[in-house]
């Protein structure tokens, strides 16, 4: 009998200059992380509209992680600072709504940190998996 292990659905927004390249480097170095993580490329972490995150949870995502350049290293000088502030507010609101704050994360991953990218994703996927399925914000009408 095959046991169907619970697989979380994780959306990762990665900035084009640091974190997406960091993810590429993880690939180059064959550093494995769970396939549950699906990456969406954005020019800068500050492009991530809270709307995207709400939509992801609404459609059944179990965790959302945003990766950007380290503070001070943003390709656009200050984008990641906006991200940090906006997401702090958003995550706190989501937490209030019942989306545990462990399901949301902002992480700084540089283009040189392939290993950090893989480690972050492994850790995040593990954390999210341990929380189980996220149902709080799911729009059941989206389920076919």
């Amino acid at each position: 009998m095959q046991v169907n292990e619970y697989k979380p659905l994780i959306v990762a927004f990665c900035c084009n200059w640091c974190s997406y390249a960091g993810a590429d480097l993880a690939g180059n170095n064959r550093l494995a992380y769970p396939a549950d993580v699906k990456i969406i490329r954005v020019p800068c972490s500050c492009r991530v509209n809270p709307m995207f995150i709400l939509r992801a949870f609404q459609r059944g995502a179990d965790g959302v992680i945003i990766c950007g350049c380290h503070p001070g290293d943003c390709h656009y000088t200050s984008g990641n600072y906006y991200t940090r502030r906006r997401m702090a507010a958003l995550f706190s609101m989501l937490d209030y709504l019942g989306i545990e704050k462990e399901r949301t994360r902002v992480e700084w991953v540089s283009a040189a940190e392939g290993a950090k990218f893989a480690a972050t994703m492994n850790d995040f996927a593990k954390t999210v998996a341990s929380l189980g399925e996220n149902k709080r914000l799911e729009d059941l009408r989206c389920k076919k």
Partner: protein
Amino acid sequence: MQRVGVFVCWCGSNIAGTVDVEAVSEALKSEPGVVFSTNYQYMCSQAGQDMIKDAVKEHNLTGIVVCSCSPRMHEATFRKTAAAAGLNPYMVEIANIREQCSWVHKDVLTGTEKAIILGKAAVAKVNLNTPLIPGESPVTKRALVIGGGIAGIQTALDIADAGFEVDIVEKKPTIGGKMAQLDKTFPTLDCAACILTPKMVDVAQNEKIRIFSYSEVTEVQGFVGNFDVTIKKNARYVKEEICTGCGACVEKCPMKKIPNEFNLGMDNRSAIYIPFAQAVPKVATIDPNACNMLKNGKCGVCSKVCAAGAIDYTQKDEYINEKYGAIVVATGFNPISMDKFDEFAYNQSKDVITSLEFERLTNAAGPSAGKLVRPSDGKHPHTIVFVQCVGSRCESCAEKGKEYCSKICCMYTAKHAMLTRDKYPDTEVYVFYIDVRTPGKNFDEFYRRAVEEYGVKYVKGMVGKVTPEGDKLKVQASDLIANKQLHIDADLVVLAAAIEPDKSARPLATMLTASMDTNDFFTEAHPKLRPVESPTAGVFLSGACQGPKDIPETVSQAGAAASKVIGLLAKDKLTGNPCVANSNELMCNGCSSCANVCPYGAISYEDKEFRMPDRTTKVRRVAVVNPAVCQGCGACTVACPSGAMDLKGFANSQIMAEVDAICK
């Protein structure tokens, strides 16, 4: 509705090994908009690209999805392919199923499943793509070179040779950099000054080149082709245009006990000084921390003896604004501090010196006029111990030193050892090494000559402790080949200190938004294929600011950086990135939220007339994005409360479609 073609790449076995490419192309066939789907061994090959072109024609495709390697790798390639097939290049989307799928997952089932989802996201996005046309911006035909060492000098000369104007900003009173401090250069042993100073003169005489010495860059705005730079010219209290460099002031200045930086503090200079005889520009500079006149208004000797009347105690720092099309960073290196390595007693004895200090000691223009003597007592040293790798190749957890190999030390130490034995055959010379690294033309031959012809004693091992005792330096070291601990009574110990990027590099990188590695070396756009460009467009790298380098390498990199700059300045217009923000003026309420977050000042406001449904007109304030200045970060799109601001190429609807596709 778009007519989308999907092309799944095997990348040999790189993708096909973990992803069932057939299943992927099959699954994507039924996605909305997809009219054609196939897979091929190497999509980026000529045959693969032809396949795409043919399919565009045959199936009347309006959008293309390539499931392949990272878009950072081949997005540009496939955009060109689309353009060649008559499509707008921005109608291409890449699903990264190599770096972010086949290479990180081992199981074929999971890999294939994820590849399909990534492909679906790309299809969902391309369905909402619109043709984009990049804007154009003019190019300011002038380059800025930051740093006036050999790297900056060579870059500036090469750019000027091509007919473009170049400015050099150097923080010291003279250009010349580290090379001006060297004695001989390996492996040919020509004298550094003999080959450098003519180049310095060339710079001074070249009418295309301006030198801002004793100056620094304080602000950088703008973007490739249109940088707006503020240069701070520090007050040197001497009118540069008038000073003849005669040196009368230097001679008469009563403050003569200031440590001379050029000789690394091994002798003194006066408060008003010219760093060295061949300085360019050859003008005096007053050290404000040492000058009595500037500190408490008492003295004024230099002003009295200056026949040209060049002294100006009231001079202020001056700020200059200038526009540049390209910026070259050539900020160079410094030896690291030896403070954390006092087992070698650098801070406890004057006769323990660094290799750069040794250069000054053996240089004819140095503090001892080229006579190799001990700094402590001026006596001739009979036994000299050279220690390699001091602070290089240290593990990070050792909490001191640098992790990298400083690259130049093996060769300059061989040079020092050889020259010492050549000039003073009565001197015993030991070199303690971990490895001797000599990959370079005629480098190993040079090192072998030092051993075989000049009798330098190379010992495999490290020095553990240097104990100054009386007028000797007791050196305790290991000889790993003989498996012995050696005790040598040395007269002089020379440390091959690791090199690190100049401290000014980090703040400069922030100003330029150019990336750096953890050691503060500038990162290149591609380590192999774009070694002299920074990832930030319009910023180029020359010399040791990018990594440790010797002179030949620095000069060739300087030339390469210059050729890249020339290529840029030769263009009249630059095509920009079309993925820029744009504001829907019908939705915009002119609140200024977007302009407040824009790091580039790309957003301005206009009063615009709108026709209302009742046929009246109304004037409203709306945001307008300057596409030449916008870099496409998207900060404004999130700040906009009315949803008027969007980003081309990464539109709200497109990203939302990707989210939907992934979360299905």
